[in-house]
């Protein structure tokens, strides 16, 4: 038998080559400092966590996740960015407060940390909310690249496809379709035609109300993109939207709509007690989870309804990743490396398969969208171009607080829809005036 003999020099060269090969990383995966991400506990958290694990496995870089309740995450982020030295490197910011971080100078632009950073051309920019021009205080592609989209959360209409088949119903497009279908399937207490959020919270009932308001052609402000924050909430469209929301709850909804929060709405869906619900798409994976749901493979998805001739108006409840201004440059660069990996189609595929919502359009063109498990992707892709960013200013939390109270009071029957809309408009106008925005209000609803 021939034996292969290896001399000492060859052996050392071979060992050295192996060691060298093990240190070579893909171009996008530089070896960087460990980073900490502050994030909230949401329906999509599991998928993000698994995506981060995939990043760590592929690159060897370390990421720690600091997980908090929704409101708790905002508090932690504020405390961190206002300190002399920040605790968190990446802030996962909700649509309700990312503007506060931009305007306050609390996040460093990605383009400032790495001027050569290239955004993936297929990445959703979510109403250009990832950009910000500090001079003009606007969000447009001409500004700096401030953040990375993390979750393009939109409300979608979840509906029981099996019940639709039984009753021969067609997929909802307009608000009349939704009302009729919800009434047809309403059989309390076993099944409610629709379950809606009505509880006051950090960003609860107002978020669920927006698709109705925007889908009917209404809005809170006259022209926020142009900087005109004159109130249009208390006009006929606003009234029609709120009256519809209340009538739907009363005639085909849950009797305790005024106390329903997101967890309870999702619970109603997965326990088979809701025929329809408008819920963030991030909750889709719970519908098909046999450990949580008795409606596995029965839930279908559609864009939120709209008035005839108008597009749907789902409000962005998205999440963006910003890099803290007060952390060492080394960690800022590490955060950029994470973003560089995260935006790639391959990483977004991991995100989708883990139950998340991909941010890269390439994933929506992939054959995986034909799989039954990902039946929500096409409706989401149809809805995304119509997504509305309701708040592009830092005082959003004050306005949201007014909306939460007013909407909850009217849904609870404490005040009429007219009184709610008028009082909300008055208070919001006062807030905008206090902060020196161009604002005003029309005649109150009669």
């Amino acid at each position: 038998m021939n034996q292969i003999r290896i001399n000492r020099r060859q052996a050392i060269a071979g060992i050295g080559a192996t060691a060298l090969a093990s240190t070579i990383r893909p171009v996008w995966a530089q070896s960087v400092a460990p980073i900490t991400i502050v994030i909230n506990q949401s329906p999509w958290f599991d998928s993000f966590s698994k995506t981060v694990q995939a990043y760590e496995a592929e690159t060897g870089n370390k990421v720690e996740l600091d997980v908090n309740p929704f409101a708790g995450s905002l508090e932690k982020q504020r405390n961190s960015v206002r300190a002399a030295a920040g605790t968190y490197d990446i802030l996962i910011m909700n649509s309700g407060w990312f503007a506060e971080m931009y305007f306050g100078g609390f996040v460093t632009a990605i383009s400032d940390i790495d001027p050569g950073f290239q955004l993936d051309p297929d990445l959703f920019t979510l109403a250009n909310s990832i950009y910000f021009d500090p001079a003009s205080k606007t969000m447009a592609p001409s500004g700096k690249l401030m953040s990375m989209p993390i979750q393009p959360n939109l409300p979608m209409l979840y509906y029981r496809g099996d019940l639709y088949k039984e009753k021969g119903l067609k997929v909802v497009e307009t608000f009349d379709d939704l009302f009729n279908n919800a009434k047809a399937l309403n059989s309390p207490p076993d099944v409610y035609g629709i379950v809606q959020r009505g509880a006051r919270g950090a960003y609860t009932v107002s978020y669920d109300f927006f698709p109705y308001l925007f889908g009917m052609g209404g809005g809170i402000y006259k022209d926020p993109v142009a900087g005109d924050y004159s109130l249009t909430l208390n006009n006929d469209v606003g009234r029609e939207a709120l009256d519809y929301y209340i009538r739907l709850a009363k005639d085909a909804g849950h009797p305790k709509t005024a106390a329903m929060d997101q967890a309870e709405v999702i619970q109603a869906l997965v326990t088979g007690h809701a025929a329809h619900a408008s819920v963030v798409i991030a909750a889709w994976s719970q519908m098909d989870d046999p450990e949580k749901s008795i409606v596995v493979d029965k839930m279908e998805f559609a864009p939120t309804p709209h008035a005839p001739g108008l597009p749907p108006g789902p409000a962005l409840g998205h999440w963006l990743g910003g890099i803290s201004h007060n952390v060492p440059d080394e960690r800022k660069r590490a955060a950029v490396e994470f973003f560089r990996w995260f935006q790639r189609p391959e990483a977004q595929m991991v995100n989708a398969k883990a139950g998340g919502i991909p941010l890269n359009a390439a994933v929506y063109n992939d054959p995986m969208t034909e799989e039954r498990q990902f039946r929500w992707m096409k409706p989401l892709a149809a809805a995304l171009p119509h997504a509305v960013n309701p708040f592009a200013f830092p005082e959003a939390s004050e306005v949201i607080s007014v909306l939460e109270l007013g909407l909850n009071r009217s849904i609870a029957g404490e005040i009429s829809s007219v009184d709610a809309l008028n009082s909300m408009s008055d208070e919001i106008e006062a807030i905008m005036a206090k902060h020196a925005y161009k604002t005003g209000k029309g005649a109150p609803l009669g």
Partner: protein
Amino acid sequence: MNAKLDRTAARTADRNASPGSDTLWKWLTFSPAFAFMLLFSALPLINLVATSFQNVTWTGGQADHSAAGLSHYLALPADVLFRAGLVNTIIFAFVAVGGQAVLGLALALFTTKVTRGRTIYRAIFILPILIPGIVIGAIWKLMLNFDFGLVNKLLGAIAIAPHDWLGGSDTALLSVIAVDIWHWTPFCFLLFLAGLESLPQDVFEAANMDGANAWQEFIYVTLPLMIPTIVVTCAFRLVLAFKVFDEVYLLTGGGPGTSTEVISFTLYQRFFTEDQLGYGSAMSVAVIFIVSLLLVFAISAGRRFEGAAK
């Protein structure tokens, strides 16, 4: 004895001879405690009051303080949440504490009267106060759930329709009060039990010899003797009840509408959620003032009651 008196006289003479060194020594030993109190009590309060006259905004990652004068204080009466919170908190505090006092006293009287199993009763009665607030919120949120809560299930067993206890404007505040009574009655029970067990027994013996029945004994003997304990307990509980937050946060979030809005929750929203630091500080100062007034009122009312009972 004479030696002891001589030593005392000598010490007094020394003190009279150098009063300055004695005073200095007193200040030296007192100053660490004083500094601690200044640092952790007075300074934060001064900072809070100062911030209440300012607007705080953020630019370039830095805080920008500007004068706001009295504008924050003047805005308080117009704040819908503040008004609702104040009214609800007053109702909550007095009804909840009243319920806790009555129940606590009843349980304490019962415990003193039983001859067997007193330790077991005491252990059972104090259980609610041992449970963490967040667990209490979880327990009662489940119990009062409209669809599957135990309360509605029990009502259903006796053919009463389910009710939305936490979601209905008419019952939400009462439900939160009921939870608070369940949670804090053991506190009153413990203090009342200690008070009852320390009462002089010869008074009760004299009452028995005079032929007083149980009710007369309670009205004319027990209650008057217990007034100092009741006043202190109720005053303590009133101050704590005025600061209620966790039960409201966990059970109702202040809703539906403003029916369970309490002042602490309003403060939390304005100061923390909405980041209105100046306005939130003004609200905090107003709440401190109101609670102090309440405490003074409660104590003086208690003293008047005590005097009338004597």
